[in-house]
């Protein structure tokens, strides 16, 4: 199915994503205040996260651990890191500098493999502290008409990891798939609950365009205030088209930060990046470096749960299919079942087919052994396709053994010779219909199949019946 192109012919978009995730620690990054969403304002504050004069930060060991785990899950190199101060003013900044990582981040140069097999490079994933939250009064909640701003510092100091991709995505679908994959990784590792609607995962999109075939990087804009995957796609496409319009009119986009307006379906101008503060980064003198050992990293690797990309790769190998074809099965959590069934002798294609088509509600009581046994019965022809589906349903709901269930349901293997005898009987009883079938009238086929099904109470395999009829007809 082809969709109308987002951009005019000859143009491609270049997308990089900055994703901020809140870590699922009990406390904040540099102090022992609770890391908790939704509490009454300014009830989780202390001298450190409020930036009171004289306060000092001390790094949270769990936050550092999670950050390294996330880095390894993104296939990054984990190295010695230094906290740096990024200096700028905003009322939600308790110290008017943000403690982040700049020249020496914890994690660098990794990648994420998407369900369709695309690999997206990750430049870095560094640790930093979150800011407080501002609410603007008056003016209908919009910043520009506000009469006052109220600030809550509960969120100030919450640990974040900022994941920065390389600008290597070229359409909104890839960007969405990348974010969805990140979310899955975060959930599987337990590093974050990654809820865009709660703000524990925030996505900013860097968008530019260029002529197809060029490798230049033209002026880019950063689009913020994207609150869902759907918005992400819409915002990217809007912004890319806006850039193309400007370039084709002989103008160029201004390098700036833009605000996505979901209701209006457009981005609006924000701060100009040329006017941006000089952040005057320098190593924070209050925080010693973090130096992970190889043993630390090895321990993290050893304890890493099975990540989606690895599961897709393993299933592709076991089932002899393309990675892209394993996505659905892995998403449903059926890969372990299928691989085990294949190891127990099940035909890979059949197993995959059933997983995709007949197990949409999950495996329930089905086990690899019973699954394999059932698939074997199907391959041998012991059960018809319809029967297999029924037995499978029973195995999922109530468990048991396929042979027992088949017997209980009266699904016996029907001898082919028995079927032949039956068929002969029905041919004798319907000579006119048979003559028409022999002459090539396939419409009358259903009459015979129906009669046989009636006579066998549905146990006959429709495919086998058709084969027999064809053989008979050819015999004359």
């Amino acid at each position, binding site marked *: 199915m082809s969709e109308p192109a987002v951009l005019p012919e000859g143009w491609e978009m270049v997308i990089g994503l900055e994703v901020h995730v809140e870590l699922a620690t009990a406390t904040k990054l540099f102090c022992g205040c609770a890391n908790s969403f939704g509490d009454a304002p300014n009830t989780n504050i202390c001298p450190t996260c409020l930036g009171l004069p004289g306060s000092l930060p001390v790094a949270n*060991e769990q936050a550092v651990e999670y950050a390294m785990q996330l880095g390894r899950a993104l296939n990054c190199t984990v190295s010695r890191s230094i906290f740096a101060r990024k200096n700028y003013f905003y009322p939600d900044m308790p110290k008017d500098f943000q403690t982040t990582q700049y020249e020496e981040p914890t994690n660098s140069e990794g990648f994420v493999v998407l369900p369709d097999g695309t690999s997206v490079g990750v430049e870095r994933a560094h640790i930093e502290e979150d800011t407080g939250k501002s609410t603007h009064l008056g003016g209908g909640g919009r910043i520009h008409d506000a009469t006052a701003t109220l600030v*809550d510092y509960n969120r100030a100091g919450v640990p974040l990891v900022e994941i920065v991709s390389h600008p290597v995505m070229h359409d909104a679908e890839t960007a969405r798939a990348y974010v969805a994959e990140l979310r899955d990784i975060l959930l599987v590792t337990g590093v974050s609950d990654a809820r865009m609607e709660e703000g524990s995962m925030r996505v900013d999109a860097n968008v530019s365009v260029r002529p197809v075939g060029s490798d230049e990087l033209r002026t880019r804009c950063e689009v913020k205030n994207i609150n869902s995957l759907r918005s992400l796609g819409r915002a990217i496409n809007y912004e890319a088209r806006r850039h193309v319009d400007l370039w084709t009119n002989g103008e160029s986009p201004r390098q700036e930060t833009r605000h996505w307006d979901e209701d209006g379906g457009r981005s609006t101008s924000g*701060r100009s990046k040329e006017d941006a503060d000089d952040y005057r980064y320098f190593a924070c003198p209050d925080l010693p470096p973090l130096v992970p050992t190889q043993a630390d990293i090895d321990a993290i690797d050893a304890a890493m749960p099975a990540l989606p990309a690895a599961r897709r790769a393993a299933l592709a190998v076991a089932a002899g299919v393309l990675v892209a074809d394993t996505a659905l099965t892995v998403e449903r959590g059926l890969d372990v079942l299928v691989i085990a069934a294949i190891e127990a002798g099940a035909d890979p294609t059949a197993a995959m087919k059933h997983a995709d088509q007949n197990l949409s509600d999950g495996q329930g009581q089905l086990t690899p052994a019973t699954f394999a046994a059932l698939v074997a019965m199907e391959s041998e022809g012991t059960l018809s396709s319809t029967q297999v589906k029924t037995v499978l349903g029973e195995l999922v709901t109530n468990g048991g053994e396929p042979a027992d269930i088949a017997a209980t349901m009266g699904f016996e293997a029907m001898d082919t010779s028995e079927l032949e005898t039956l068929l002969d009987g029905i041919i004798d009883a319907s000579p006119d219909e048979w003559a028409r079938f022999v002459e090539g009238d396939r419409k009358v086929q259903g009459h015979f199949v129906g009669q046989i099904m009636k006579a066998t109470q549905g146990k006959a395999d429709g495919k086998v019946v058709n084969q027999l009829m064809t053989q008979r007809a050819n015999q004359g």
Partner: protein
Amino acid sequence: MSGEISRDEVAHVASLARLRLSDNELDTFTEQLCVVLETAAQLNSLDLSEVPPMAQPYPLTNVLRPDVIVPSLDRDEVLAQAPEAEDGRFRVPPALGEAP
């Protein structure tokens, strides 16, 4: 580095530092900063390319604390010190525009 700083540069630095200077102050500060920077320029004569910057006077690494909740401050005590507070929050004149 030359040890020279221009009046314009001082004005720019003042705005980065969130300070508003009068014309007089700009003049005086420019003069005074030039003098200090001339002293700083003494460092030009040193070849320090092989000398690493000092990270910490007493080198430490991996100073961490356990992820255990510690009681927070009493909000009332804190907000009592705020220039202006409302609804349990710090109140300030409107912030124009989003954060960087």
